């Protein structure tokens, strides 16, 4: 009996600490799809193994009422923030506690990470970890890696799946592809056209120095989609397929 209790409590411990599990990402360098002509150096950091879940986020809003859906101010979140939650501290019955939390604004994601003494990853950090498959640090040229991401883009409602349901990559990180898109700290550094009005080209009057940055490999369609998505976002936006994880 005691043994069962012990295993049970271990299990509960594991579940409740899912959010605090992190893995070390060793330093390195890579040329991202966008934003650099030369290799970008990444310093060693730690990344959450899983995206932040509904259960994690519920804990957060209980502790910090400022981020509850009826309390949060318009500057920090649009009207769809946590839109399927039935109240400030109850999420939809159809939600699984271990599914990634979505309909979160950038401000909310940033605040969540800061309250855990963590931060949002930069685009470069996120992409650096996300270019790995199960066995290679850089799988961007591997067909199965790209096929996996592209087939995910075609699947609806993957946000209702539970964390850990995709593959564990080289670094021990799950769900960077296959579950939800994720916020990054500097998502608004992508400049594919003018501010919000989308005039298309890289107008040098709109963006000083814009001629020197651009997509280094437009063939990498899967990644290009992520940059285009980031480019289209505003920090108070929330979306059903957009979640986040933290790093430190």
């Amino acid at each position, binding site marked *: 009996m005691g043994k069962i209790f012990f295993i049970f409590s271990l299990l509960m411990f594991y579940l409740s600490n899912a959010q605090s599990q992190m893995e070390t990402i060793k330093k390195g360098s890579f040329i991202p799809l966008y*934003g*650099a002509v030369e290799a970008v150096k990444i310093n060693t950091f730690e990344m959450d193994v899983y995206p932040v879940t509904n259960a994690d986020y519920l804990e957060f809003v209980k502790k910090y009422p400022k981020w509850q859906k*009826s309390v949060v*101010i*318009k*500057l*920090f979140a649009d009207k769809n923030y946590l839109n399927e939650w039935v*109240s*400030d501290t109850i999420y939809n019955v159809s939600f699984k506690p271990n599914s990634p939390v979505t309909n979160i604004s*950038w*401000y909310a994601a*940033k605040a969540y990470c800061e309250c855990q003494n963590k*931060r949002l990853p930069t685009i470069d950090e996120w992409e650096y970890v996300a270019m790995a498959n199960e066995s290679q640090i850089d799988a961007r040229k591997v067909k199965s890696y790209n096929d996996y991401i592209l087939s995910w883009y075609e699947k609806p409602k993957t946000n209702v799946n539970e964390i850990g349901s995709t593959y564990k990559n080289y670094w021990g990180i799950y769900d960077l592809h296959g579950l939800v898109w994720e916020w990054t*700290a*500097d998502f*608004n*550094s*992508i*400049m594919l056209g*003018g*501010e*919000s*009005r989308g005039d298309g080209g890289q*107008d040098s*009057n*709109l*963006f*000083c*120095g*814009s001629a*020197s*940055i651009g997509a280094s490999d437009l063939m990498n369609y899967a990644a290009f989609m992520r940059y285009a998505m980031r480019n289209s976002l*505003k*920090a108070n936006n929330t979306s059903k397929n957009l979640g986040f994880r933290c790093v430190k």
Partner: protein
Amino acid sequence: MIKSKFFIIIISFLLLSACHNKKEQATTLASYECPMHCEGDQTYEEPGSCPVCKMDLVLVTDDKPILETSNEISETSIFNLTSDWKTQNNKSIKLKELQGKTLVMVMIYTSCQAACPRLVADMRNIEKQIPVDRLDNIAFVFVSIDPETDTPQKLKAFAKENRMDDNSHIFLQGSLADVREFSNVLSVKYKQISPLDFSHSNIISVFDKNGELVKQQEGLGVDNKAIVSEIIQTSK
């Protein structure tokens, strides 16, 4: 459910009572203006005749607040940001301390060679078109997107170089995260492309005295009539 209804009632009560406080503390002075508004919103402290059309000046009747010290801010006000900043005089401030002034804000970095000098020139050209008596109600704010390089000392030197080192020009240094957050509020995008160089959008934003965004101008050397008239209107 009952609990949340109760909560809504409490909130609306708070909002209602908040509205009652709005009008207080508006200091007014008697002033006179031309009934034909020959010189726009020009006002005079003493009665007389308009220098342009020679008509008798009339007393300005509406109570124009000279200084708004009400603490009410809305949900979309930039004064909701609680970040700490350093000015070119190495003074620590929060944005809320700028409440009461119309804010004309731009994000630049001092080592910028391409767009920033033109952005600063655009700010100067806007300022030139503002009636002198309005300038007391306006602050021109330059926020550095390169806070690691742009220390208060650097910002001070930049302000002096541009003959902008006075009380109505505020240069701000923040943390990397706070600058990023601020850029999101302004819908300004930027990216570091080399140690001393950034790519960034060129946007000048106008906020009213309660931190509400009222106007944005995008691009360099564009026609600034609209933004100037908005600033004049807002800084009344």
